[in-house]
């Protein structure tokens, strides 16, 4: 496999309340033809917070992740692409997001990873709230996603 869009990559796009099985998913992304694997973990950082809540419009967010998976899988010659996003109440150190990309070479693995991550941040129907001893505050979202941008995405 070397041509974009030739075969859909292995792997899934999933939004889940369950803890992400990081090791299993990374091991599963190995492929004899893969010379590069990019793995990314988004982790709850200790910014003086107690925990974080990840909320999603679940059906829509699931579809968003699947569309991103399909788009990236079609654009880049990747062997495996895993996109797993947690929801619910998460403690410091827990994994919010896992992206794993395996491909023949590092260049397309990094490019595919970056595009998947940026697309998730730009449009997946997901929100995060940080809890501190003083209460909760919603993390500022993506203000660039304006109505015009939505129209262009829908039309494309």
């Amino acid at each position: 496999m070397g041509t974009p869009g030739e075969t859909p990559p292995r792997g899934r796009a999933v939004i889940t309340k369950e803890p992400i099985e990081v090791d299993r998913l990374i091991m599963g992304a190995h492929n004899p033809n893969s010379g590069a694997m990019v793995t990314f973990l988004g982790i709850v950082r200790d910014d003086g917070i107690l925990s974080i809540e990840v909320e999603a419009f679940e059906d829509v967010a699931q579809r968003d992740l699947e569309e991103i998976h399909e788009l990236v899988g079609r654009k880049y010659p990747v062997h495996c692409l895993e996109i797993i996003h947690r929801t619910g109440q998460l403690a410091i150190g827990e994994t919010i997001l896992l992206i794993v990309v395996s491909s023949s070479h590092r260049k397309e693995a990094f490019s595919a990873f970056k595009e998947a991550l940026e697309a998730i941040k730009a449009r997946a129907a997901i929100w995060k709230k940080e809890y501190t001893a003083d209460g909760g505050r919603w993390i500022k979202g993506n203000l660039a996603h304006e109505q015009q941008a939505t129209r262009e995405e829908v039309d494309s």
Partner: protein
Amino acid sequence: MKIRLRLFARYRDIYGDMKELEVTDPCSPLGILRLAFPRGTEGHTLSFDETGGLKRHLILLINQRRLTGAEYETLILSEGDELALLPPVAGG
């Protein structure tokens, strides 16, 4: 006619995750939001700018389909439709 309004993040904190609205006349998505969040409410401040227009970073969906900006005023809702209001997303 009943329209359900799904809310998320800060809106959910204030109003709960679902608001059911009863409308008698044909109504657009924007009309529903004006009904749900009258002037002087926190929802109005969050949703509308000083000219009375919807803030540009908000996204609307009907029955889980993202609407174009043009549809916000032109689409007419039907009985049982679910309108969703998405504040700026922050996944990842």
